[in-house]
C-alpha cells in the first residue's frame, strides 16, 4: 500500500544513536561520507566498514531493514562495478578476449566501489532511520542559523519542509480515503490501459486538490492567528543540547578518521 512508503523512513526507537543530537548526527554523517572517499586501500576501507557495523549494531535497527535500503540502488551499484571492471586497465591482465580486457586493477576498483557505495547508502539511511524528518530539518535550520545572513531564508525553507513533511502522511491518508470512497461508487482504478487509468484518477485527484487547498488556507489562517511572522524574534520551546553521547560520537568518528589516515600512510595504495 501507498502508506507503507514512509518518507525519510524514520524507524522510531530509543537507542543511543536515536538519542544523539540531530546536528551532531548530520555533521558526523557528512564527515563519515568524506572519509569513505579518503580510503586508499582495503585496510582503511575495512576500518570504515567496521565503524559502520558498530554504529548499526548500536542503533538496534534490524539488519533486514538496513539491507532494504540498499535494494533500490542495486542497479546503480552493479552498473558502476561493471563499468569500472571494463575500463580500469591497471594491474595484471586477467582476461583478454576480443574487446573485453579485465585486469586485477579493474576488479579491485569494482569491489572497492561496491563497498564504498554500500557504506555511503547505509550511513545516510541510518541518519534518516534514527532521526525523525522534523528533527533533521530542525537540525539543518539550527546549523545554518549560525550564519546570521542566512537565518531568515533558512528558517523559511525549514518551515516549509516541516509543513510539507507534516502533511505527507495526511495527504496519503486523504488519498486513500478518497480512493476508497470512489471505489465504493464502482470506480475501477486497477484495470485498463494507461490512458484509461489516468482518466480513472480524475475522481480521486480533483477532491484531493480541493482538500489540499482548503487545508493550506486553514493552516495559513491558524498560523497567522497565532502571530507567526517568520524567524524574526522567534525562540524555541525545546532547545537542542549536545550531550555526552554526542561527545562520544564525535570522538568515535574522529578516531575512525585518524585511523583511516594512518592506514592510508602505512599500507600501499590500491586505488
Amino acid at each position, binding site marked *: 500500500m501507498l502508506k507503507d512508503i514512509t518518507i525519510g523512513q524514520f524507524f522510531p526507537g530509543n537507542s543511543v544513536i536515536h538519542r544523539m543530537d540531530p546536528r551532531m548526527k548530520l555533521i558526523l554523517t557528512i564527515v563519515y561520507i568524506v572519509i569513505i572517499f579518503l580510503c586508499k586501500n582495503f585496510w582503511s576501507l575495512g576500518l570504515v566498514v567496521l565503524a559502520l557495523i558498530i554504529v548499526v549494531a548500536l542503533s538496534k535497527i534490524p539488519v533486514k531493514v538496513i539491507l532494504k535500503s540498499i535494494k533500490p540502488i542495486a542497479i546503480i551499484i552493479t552498473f558502476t562495478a561493471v563499468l569500472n571492471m571494463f575500463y580500469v586497465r591497471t594491474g595484471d591482465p586477467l582476461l583478454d578476449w576480443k574487446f573485453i580486457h579485465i585486469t586485477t586493477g579493474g576488479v579491485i576498483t569494482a569491489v572497492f566501489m561496491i563497498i564504498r557505495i554500500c557504506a555511503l547508502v547505509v550511513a545516510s539511511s541510518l541518519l534518516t532511520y534514527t532521526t525523525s524528518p522534523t528533527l533533521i530539518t530542525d537540525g539543518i535550520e539550527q546549523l545554518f542559523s549560525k550564519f546570521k545572513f542566512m537565518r531568515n531564508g533558512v528558517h523559511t525553507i525549514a518551515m516549509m519542509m516541516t509543513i510539507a513533511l507534516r502533511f505527507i502522511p495526511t495527504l496519503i491518508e486523504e488519498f486513500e480515503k478518497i480512493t476508497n*470512497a470512489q471505489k*465504493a461508487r464502482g470506480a475501477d482504478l486497477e484495470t485498463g490501459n494507461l490512458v484509461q487509468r489516468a482518466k480513472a484518477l480524475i*475522481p480521486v485527484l480533483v477532491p484531493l486538490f*480541493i482538500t489540499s487547498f482548503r487545508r493550506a488556507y486553514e493552516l495559513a489562517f491558524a498560523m497567522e492567528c497565532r502571530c507567526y511572522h517568520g524567524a524574526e524574534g522567534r525562540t524555541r520551546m525545546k532547545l537542542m543540547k549536545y550531550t555526552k553521547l554526542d561527545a562520544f560520537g564525535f570522538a568515535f568518528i574522529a578516531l575512525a578518521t585518524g585511523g583511516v589516515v594512518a592506514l592510508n600512510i602505512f599500507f600501499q595504495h590500491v586505488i
Partner: protein
Amino acid sequence: MSILKTDNLTYKYSVGTPFEVTALKDINLEIEKGELVAVIGHTGSGKSTLIQHFNGLLKPTEGKIFVDGQDIWESKKTLKEARFKVGLCFQYPEYQLFEETVFADIAFGPKNMGLDEEDIESRVLSAASFTGVTEEMLEKSPFDLSGGEKRRVAIAGVMAMEPEILILDEPTSGLDPKGRDAILKMIRDYRDTTGSTVMIVSHSMEDVAKIATRVLVMNHAEIMSFDTVEETYRHADSLISVGLDVPQITKVFLELKRRGIPVKSNIYTVDQAVSEIDRLRKEGVSLC
C-alpha cells in the same frame, strides 16, 4: 437466510510493522434483510474498519464475510458483485464530489455499473428526490453548494446505485441538529420506501435510537452487544462506561435508580419517562 454475515472476522492494520493495530477482533454477526442497524461505539472502536469489510474494500486478516450467502472474497467476480450490492457512503462524503454538475456526480456510481442513459437518469432523479436535492441544484456545480447540501448530494450518489444494503458512516457528523434530523428522516424514508437493509454508523446513541431496529455496540475492536434499542438501553450504565453518550433523560433515571428508587433503567425518551413516573405515582412510590 441473512443478507450479511461475518465469520470470525479479524482485521489488523500495518501487519508486520511496529505500528500494527488490531482494529477488529473475532467479529461474528448476522443481519437480516430489511433491518436498520445502528453501529455505535467510541472513536477508534473499529466501526469504520468493520463497514469497509462489507463491500470488500478491506480484506480480512482472518475470517470471512458473506453477502447474500456468498463469500465475497471467493473470486474477482464475487468481489465486484459485493461492491454494487453493498453501497458504502464514507464519513464526510462531501469531500468525494468531483464532477462538473451535481447530476453528473450522482450519476457516477450508476455509470460505473454499466447502466444505460435512461436508467441512469431515472435513478439519479429518484435518489435526488429521496435526499431533497432539487432540480435546480442538479444543474449546479457541487462546489457551489452549502455543506449540508453537498452531504445530501454525496449520499444521493450512493443511493442512486440502489444497493441491497446501504451503509452510511457517521452521516450526521458535523451537522447542526436540524440538518441531522433531516438526514435521519431521509434515511428512514429511503428504507421504508425501498425496503432495503440499512446500516448507520454513529458515535451517539441518541441519534439512531429513534430509527434503528437493532443496535450493534462496538468497544475496543470487539462487539459489546448487538440487540434491540430497548435491550441496549437496559445496560445504559455500561454504555456510559465505554465512553458513549446517552440521552439526558436516561442519565436522570440512572441516577434515580442509583438512589434506590425502583425505576426501569431503559428509559430513553421523554414520553417513556412520563409514563414511568405515572406508573410509580400509581404504585405510591415517592420520587424524592
